[in-house]
């Protein structure tokens, strides 16, 4: 048996000088960045005063112009649904092309580049470009969120395909099935549940962003929200914000339900 000798005055937890230096560096950075960004206590206090007045003007929320509100929300919903549909349809083949276990390198590389490009810009910035190309309105919003969806679902879908078991693919191939059948019978059944999960997540995320692209004129409730902000119409802003949060809440609940249906451990039952 190994005998452990305990030295007198042993310290249970040795001081970690690197961690301490890290904490000091962090504090120094915070002070430096605050001074650079002109973040001062005085400004903060003035802001708190402002904030109280601001919140006072927001309540009670004003729902009297509910037609504008309902129209904006409906348009946001439409943008989210259509952008998710288009994005998913496009990202299916692209995700497949980007999966390294099924495709040769010269195919995956450009597909991955394309996905990375779609992901690198915020949807609102993409919306700016589309507003110029397609004009104001829901169409630009749909286009912008489609790009965002391709970036997200394409990446996750490619990763999901890369994690599948190749045994089933091999089995389908061994029967002499053509390429499309290998995909539909060997690959898709393995990733479908997770794919539905990504799709509902993306719908959720598109719903959040579709309420925002209106700020640059790409349709949805964002335009009305931004306009009301600039008119200091804060009680209407509050009504819109509450509606948006409610909508997103409901969307999240539905998304959780759908995920539960499709990600349930699929038992093999006989009837």
């Amino acid at each position, binding site marked *: 048996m190994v005998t452990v000798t305990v030295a007198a005055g042993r310290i249970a937890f040795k001081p970690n000088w690197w961690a301490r230096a890290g904490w000091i560096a962090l504090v120094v950075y915070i002070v430096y960045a605050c001074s650079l960004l002109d973040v001062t206590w005085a400004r903060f206090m003035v802001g708190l005063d402002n904030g109280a007045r601001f919140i006072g003007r927001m309540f009670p929320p004003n729902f009297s112009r509910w037609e504008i509100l309902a129209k904006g929300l409906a348009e946001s919903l439409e943008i989210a649904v259509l952008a998710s549909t288009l994005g998913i349809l496009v990202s299916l083949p692209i995700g497949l092309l980007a999966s390294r276990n099924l495709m040769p390198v010269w195919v995956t590389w450009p597909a991955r580049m394309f996905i990375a490009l779609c992901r690198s810009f915020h949807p*609102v*910035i993409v919306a*700016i470009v589309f507003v110029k*190309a*397609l004009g104001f309105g829901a169409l630009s919003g749909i286009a912008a969120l489609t790009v965002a969806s391709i970036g997200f679902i394409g990446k996750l879908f490619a990763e999901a395909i890369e994690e599948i078991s190749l045994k089933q693919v091999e089995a389908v191939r061994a029967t002499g099935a053509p390429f499309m059948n290998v995909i539909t019978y060997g690959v898709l059944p393995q990733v479908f549940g997770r794919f539905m999960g990504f799709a509902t997540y993306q719908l959720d995320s598109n719903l959040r962003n579709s309420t925002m692209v209106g700020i640059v004129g790409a349709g949805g409730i964002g335009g009305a929200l931004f306009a009301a902000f600039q008119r200091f119409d804060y009680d209407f802003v509050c009504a819109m914000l509450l509606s948006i949060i409610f909508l*997103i809440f409901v969307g999240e609940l539905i998304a959780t339900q*759908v995920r539960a249906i499709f990600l349930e451990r699929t038992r093999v039952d006989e009837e």
Partner: protein
Amino acid sequence: MTVAVLEARTWRRFTPAQRLARFAVYLAMVTAIVVSIQTVEVIPEFMLDAPEQMADLLKRMWPVAFAYYPKGVHEALVETLHIATLGTILAVLMAFPVGLMAANNITPSRTLNYIAKLLLVSSRSVNSLVWALLFVAVFGPGALAGTLAIAFRSIGFVGKLVGEAVEEANQGTIEALQAVGAPWLSVLTKGYWPQIQPAFWSVVLFRWDINVRESAVLGLVGAGGIGMALDTAMNLFQWDRVAMVLLAIFAVVIIAEIVVTAIRKRII
């Protein structure tokens, strides 16, 4: 004989209830898509000249105004990075107590757990641009509003993941510490912290990466950073400068992603 029995059986992957639920989801999806297509206000004429407009846009963007970088972009870009970093730090400071409050093994009170979870959800369901609008209205335009917007938007994300990591922590270490009579704070720092550290750093890095992207657009509503430069250039139709700003954002986002991946590989 047995073969015949097997053939008479019908094997199905899902139960009737599962199939019904799935069918309901498909039906809802198709309905939503059809209704959206029918009601969305799209002006088809706008699509006809889209290629022309796109070509025009690219022509105006070229050549990219690289000369504009030192005087108009660099400072704003650095400000964006500071907003993202400071916002993340602030978010972590605020998210820790809320995350601990949401974890049932640290805060054994269901009511407090629910309050914390409600705080986290409401932080997440307000978009960072909306947070920015609110803070611009309160603190005036500038980086302070942007930093707070980033921080408040991130609390939900960081807090949720911290809370989950704490709940999943192995209780053996905790019990050992409690058995020797360690005070509450020591249990936290010596029992929980080493266990949640890997998850924590990966969450923080991931969130910082997202925040760099998000802080680039906050300027559109006046909350500081490179979005301000973008907004100004766009309002003046200086598309060559817009191209410069977009290039700068693209470069920063790519660099941030590379940095995050490199750090993650080294520490996790």
